[in-house]
């Protein structure tokens, strides 16, 4: 599925996530940090596409969660990735705090899948609807000029 990211600016990131899932086990803390950074990059892209400057603030110690809150402001359907962001943070914590845990390989696999989900969800929203709402908590398209 390489190079088929829904949003062109995200091309290559899926491949990188796959590579981290395969090769990251030897350095789980670094791999976890890179997955978290990918999540931040994805949300930064969403925030920038809305014409805003991505926040450097942290929520509960994580910039990813602050970026999600910023990205969801006025966009109810963006909350569909709220728990995905929280799961990414949770798996980052598991990997960073217990790198020698016997489940580290499994945790890294899941963390990569969570990061991929965030990428696909946000990429899909950016590509398909521009910045229009299409989802079930949506605002009327005509209200935002579509």
């Amino acid at each position, binding site marked *: *599925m390489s190079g*088929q990211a*829904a949003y062109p600016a995200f091309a290559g990131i899926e491949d990188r996530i796959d590579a981290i899932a395969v090769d990251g086990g030897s350095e789980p803390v670094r791999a976890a940090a890179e997955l978290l950074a990918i999540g931040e990059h994805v949300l930064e892209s969403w925030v920038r596409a809305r014409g805003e400057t991505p926040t450097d603030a942290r929520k509960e110690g994580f910039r990813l969660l602050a970026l999600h809150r910023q990205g969801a402001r006025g966009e*109810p359907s963006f*909350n*569909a*990735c*709220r*728990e*995905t962001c*929280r*799961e990414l943070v*949770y*798996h980052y914590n598991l990997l960073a705090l217990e790198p020698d845990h016997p489940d580290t390989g*499994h945790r890294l*696999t*899941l963390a990569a*899948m*969570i990061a*991929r*989900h965030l990428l*696909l*969800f946000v*990429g*899909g929203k950016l*590509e*398909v*609807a521009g910045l229009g*709402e*299409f*989802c*079930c*908590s*949506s*605002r*009327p*398209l*005509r209200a935002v000029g579509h």
Partner: protein
Amino acid sequence: MVDVTDKAKKYRSVGYYPGCALEGTGNGYDVSTRAIAKKLGLGLRDVSNWNCCGAMEVKNVDPKIQTYLSARVLSQAVNEDRMDVVMAPCNGCYHNLKKAEYDLAHDPKSVEVVDKLSAKAGHKAYKAGEAETIHALDWLKEAIGEDGLRERTNGKLAGLKIANYYGCMYVRPRHIFPEKDKGPGSESTSQPHFMDDLLAAAGAENVSFPLKTACCGGAHTLSDSDTSTKLVLNILQAAEASGAEVIATECPTCHTGLEMHQVRAEKRFGKKTNVKVLYFTQLLGLALGIGPRALGIHTNISDSMDLIIEKRLT
């Protein structure tokens, strides 16, 4: 605050709003919901002459019309059928009815539009608070509960590893679900667990599944099928990586999406997954000793019969 035992009594007989999906692609959900109600001695009475809840399409054109359509369903239930509880198994219907309830309680403009359109349509306008909308999970959790299921199922689902998938509509947005996040016994919007609780009571082993409320890509299905397929594939693969043999669903849109894109993922991307997809009502039905056909399992796209036979669930 309603006492738990009062709720159990209140929910033993409820109004049933199947919605459009359960009459079509989600037929197995409808059939299995009715089958377990019968088996458990719970009363389900269909809301008469119901209409579409407004789904997502109407909301995109005019959200007030969606509010009216959902309010009209509630008006039928209250004013024509004398119901005080409406159970909606579909996440979309449940979400929209709850949203209409919220809008009518908080937005005078919504009240004005609903009053005007109701008068034009010749029926009584629904007023906030006249009925309670609940999901099928609330219904079973309160009316039967884990203890009730435990007694009736004797751990029939033991050895079955399940990933519970709630989708994004069941808990979102939080403000339209004032009864959730109220501590022990209530549902959580960040870590929903009612489906986990019910299936565990029937003996199932719930796996830790990180994408239980993640987007299924339902809204992308027609506009960008590849993104939908990739989102679903990721959910299916995450469920398998979590050790699940089955994904339990409680939303017809998610369920159909998981099934359709499981097939498409193999055709389009050459990615085959083997995890089965069943409605939680079908799984509870099997646990209660109801046959697969009576639960509409043969109408699912995902063929689960091998697993059902292997696990001696029939």
